[in-house]
């Protein structure tokens, strides 16, 4: 026993060590630990981010070089501080402060001394740079915007955060990533793929040569350019018209579903989110919680659609066979729900479909709406049919466009009213407001434009999208090239479109005619309420307008939504007409209209609820 004691201990120790070493080297070993190895530094070679062009090939977004002055504190030799500061355009105190900060961060690692020098400063500095040891210039690539519009469509890029790092292994700290709009949606196409070079480092993080003689290194892959469907001229013009107004505009090409313009007001110049002032500007925009410039109203606002929704109710009624274009309803300057009279501004009298549309008669559509429901034995069944028709126009759900954000709007269904009133405790009279696009229905400007495109196409639409082509190939997602058919027969559209054309000829928008272009449109005036300090108050109506033109072979369909713009033909109608003329003719003939829109602002309306004083709404003054 005592002779074997030490021998056994030696053998046991041997086995224990081998066991532990197998655990470490065989079990815990993972072959791709190159990235975790602190001794191997991966140096990335970033490809240039892809350019973005508009539908006519005009540059929207490119890249610009920026020059950071870097410093490695321990390599700095005594220098002529005054001369150097002069070249950098900073004062001596700032210089001393920044040098100290860099030294505290690390004496061996590079820190940024001055961010993003201007080209002029860079040119002056470049010649003298060799006199200053320990400093060097690092070139970076920033986004460059060839337009001051379309910030909401293009989106912006910013450094990746913790969430991205955790969820996408591609990104490393400090890299840039698309945050909104096109930059986000087509991030992988635009950014390309970075190359990597592995460098052997020591414990002090100094380079001591390439790792494995560069066998694992990869080359960068260029980002691809993207062409989008937006028309730069139309977009810029539209944003000009939105000056001082809040709201959203979406213009589509009906025959393709391409988004020609997507305007949100107020907006911002995309260049604000690039360069030295980026974070200040971002805070300013982000914390403007009253006008919300970063909130894209064209796809996120969900107002009640108002009168444009009437034409859908008419289409459903025609499809269901409950009315004919010649069917008439009597308007008593309103219509009765039970014994209460709901008002109407059409002038009263007997209305058929044509006059019902172009005079926007509430009574006519209330009657139509009731007829749809009375066709079915129960309101529930009527509701299901109505809902199915409405949803076939892309309402009440996400459209599936290639914009990274959006809202579904709302087409209420029977479950919705069951929740509100209780099962079997409501009837069509409860929901009659939906007949005229008030009540519970809601739609984004994009949905309204898409609905208009479906009418322009007489029964189908293409999913709205902004991508036109990627790189040299034109191929885009087949999702955007397949038509979506509505549940309404093609033949029912003609009488409706005739009514919409008459809106311009005789109806609510007759002052807005554009010479030589036949437009079909529909005004909308939407009552709206807000709650301020717990008090519900009514504000000036929203002004809504949908239109497409020309009536035969439509090239453009659009929806304009102007918050508190009063009646439909006022702000929204003006803007819609101008955009149509701009897009089809390329120039504006009615300069008075244009001047009025470019100059008028609605700031006084937006200030009203915050003034703390009683105010009037819906004032006729221009």
């Amino acid at each position, binding site marked *: 026993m005592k*002779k074997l004691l030490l021998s056994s*201990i030696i053998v046991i120790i041997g086995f224990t*060590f081998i066991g*532990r070493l197998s655990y*470490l080297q*065989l079990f815990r*070993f993972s072959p791709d630990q190159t990235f975790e190895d*602190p001794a191997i530094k991966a140096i990335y070679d970033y490809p240039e981010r892809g350019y973005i062009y508009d539908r006519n090939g005009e540059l929207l977004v490119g890249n610009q070089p920026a020059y950071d002055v870097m410093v490695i504190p321990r390599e700095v030799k005594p220098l002529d501080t005054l001369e150097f500061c002069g070249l950098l355009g900073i004062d001596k105190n700032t210089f001393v402060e920044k040098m100290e900060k860099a030294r505290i961060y690390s004496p061996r690692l590079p820190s940024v001394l001055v961010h993003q020098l201007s080209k002029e400063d860079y040119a002056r500095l470049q010649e003298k740079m060799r006199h200053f040891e320990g400093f060097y210039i690092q070139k970076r690539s920033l986004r460059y915007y060839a337009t001051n519009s379309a910030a909401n469509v293009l989106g912006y890029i910013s450094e990746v955060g913790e969430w991205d790092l955790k969820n996408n292994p591609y990104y490393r700290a400090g890299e840039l990533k698309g945050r909104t709009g096109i930059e986000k949606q087509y991030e992988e196409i635009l950014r390309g793929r970075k190359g990597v070079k592995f460098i052997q480092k020591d414990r002090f993080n100094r380079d*001591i040569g390439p790792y494995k003689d560069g066998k694992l290194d990869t080359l960068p892959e260029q980002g691809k350019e993207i062409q989008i469907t937006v028309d730069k001229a139309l977009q810029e013009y539209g944003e000009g018209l939105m000056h001082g107004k809040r709201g959203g505009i979406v213009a589509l090409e009906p025959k393709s579903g391409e988004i020609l313009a997507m305007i949100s007001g107020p907006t911002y110049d995309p260049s604000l989110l690039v360069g030295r002032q980026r974070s200040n500007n971002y805070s300013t925009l982000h914390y403007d919680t009253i006008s919300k410039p970063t909130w894209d109203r064209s796809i996120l606002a969900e107002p009640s659609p108002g009168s444009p929704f009437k034409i859908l109710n008419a289409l459903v009624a025609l499809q269901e066979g409950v009315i004919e274009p010649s069917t008439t309803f009597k308007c008593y300057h309103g219509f009765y729900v039970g014994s209460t009279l709901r008002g109407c501004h059409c002038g009263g009298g007997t209305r058929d479909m044509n006059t019902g549309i172009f005079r926007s008669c509430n009574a006519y559509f209330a009657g139509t709406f009731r007829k749809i429901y009375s066709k079915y034995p129960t309101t529930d069944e009527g509701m299901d049919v109505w809902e199915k028709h409405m949803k076939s126009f892309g309402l009440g759900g996400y459209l599936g466009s290639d914009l990274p954000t959006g809202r579904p709007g709302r087409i209420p269904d029977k479950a919705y009213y069951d929740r509100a009133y209780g099962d079997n405790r409501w009837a069509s009279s409860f929901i009659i407001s939906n007949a005229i696009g008030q009540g519970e229905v809601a739609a984004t400007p994009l949905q309204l434009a898409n609905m208009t495109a479906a009418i322009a196409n007489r029964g189908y639409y293409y999913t709205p999208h902004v991508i036109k082509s990627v790189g040299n190939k034109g191929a885009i997602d087949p999702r955007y090239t397949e038509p979506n058919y509505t549940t309404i027969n093609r033949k029912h559209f003609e009488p409706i479109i005739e009514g919409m054309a008459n809106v311009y000829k005789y109806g609510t928008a007759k002052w807005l005619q554009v010479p030589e272009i036949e437009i079909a449109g529909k005004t909308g005036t939407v009552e709206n309420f807000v709650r301020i300090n717990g008090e519900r108050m009514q504000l000036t109506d929203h002004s809504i307008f949908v239109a497409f033109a020309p009536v035969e072979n439509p090239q453009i369909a659009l929806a304009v939504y102007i918050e508190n713009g009063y009646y439909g033909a006022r702000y929204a109608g003006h803007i819609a007409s101008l955009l149509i003329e701009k897009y089809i003719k390329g120039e504006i003939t009615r300069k008075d209209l244009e001047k009025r829109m470019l100059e008028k602002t609605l700031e006084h309306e937006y200030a009203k609820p915050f003034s703390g004083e009683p105010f009037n709404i819906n004032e006729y003054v221009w």
Partner: protein
Amino acid sequence: MSGRGLFGRIDWLTVFLYLFLVLIGWVNIYSTTLSDPNLSIFDFSTLYGKQLLFIGMAISGVLLVLFIETNFFERFASIFYIISIVLLLGLFPFGRTIAGATSWYDLGFFNLQPSELAKVATALALAKFLSDIQTDIKKPKHQLFAVIIILLPALLILPQPDPGSALIYFSLFFVLFREGFPLYYLAILLFLVILFATTLMFGTVWVAIGLAVLTVLVYTFKKASTKIPFIPVLGIIVVAVLYSLSVNFVYENVFEQRHRDRFALWLSLEKDESKLEEIRKTIGYNTYQSEKAIESGGFFGKGFLEGTRTKGDFVPEQHTDYIFSSVGEEWGFVGTGTVILLFTIFFLRLIHLAERQKSEFNRMFGYGVISILLFHYFINIGMVIGLLPTIGVPLPFFSYGGSGLIFFSMLLFVFLKLDSNRLKDGI
């Protein structure tokens, strides 16, 4: 001297293993300390060059040992021991402090570490005392004296402070056990260590429950014929539980935070990931880096001079105490396995040599040599691969350093010299 020359009947297998281990050690020191591949390996301004010089000095020392008459060591064992003690005492006024420990004499060209010398001397003195015809290891008085021989240098080294070296002296207890020191001392020690660790890991309550369950199991499965008296067993359990409680008290109140951190790291007591991260960066930094380096070697290793963490100098003290991590990274499991195998064969061979001695002194000294080398090997590699807490002792024949290499070599070769002459001893 026999007619067979200087080396006599020296055990060539051990010599070969020794040289092989020294060579592997130097190759790894070269890889660890290489900074400019253009310098000659004989450039003595570099650490690997210096180590080459130390190897030369060690071999000279070995030759010197081989020249010396065999019974010189036995005869002067007590003198060596007294000189060592004096040298250790002399450190208090005259010692030179390196890295916080006053363990060296500055000889100008060389820093002498008397604790290394004292290891040889203590092994010799212990062997001499035990082999004395009048010594009876069964007598408590003699047991006590043997223990004093072992612990005296350890007590002098402890306040330097050099707990690692002091700990090494405890290895000499193996010599006592070999010579008839009651084995239950070892059993009790082992029991106390296990109780200590389990108390920290699971708490006194679970330790008590564990002991109770164990007792019940023993009584259930014992043969009906064997009688185990119940009262003493109960007594042991009570003492064990009291000890367990005192462990908690000592751990919380006597130990300092840095000690607690080391135990926490060793026994994986800390479960909080953020605190673990903190430990990895501070107290556990060396172990963490060393484990990572070994882990990254995988089965075949990254190749000679290809170890990224070795090159980047990530493992602190890699050329001295953590040299084994360089083996792990560059030579992989193949390399580490080979080194463990070589050491195991080496030790078993030494035991074989010790057991074949006719002279009791030779055998006991042999055991002393084995115990000292084995303890270094066990503590060092155990620490490097994260099995044991951080205790700074070098890996014999591997670690960079003159004193260590020279005294390890002389320790070994004094024994090999004795072994080569064993046939004459009986005469």
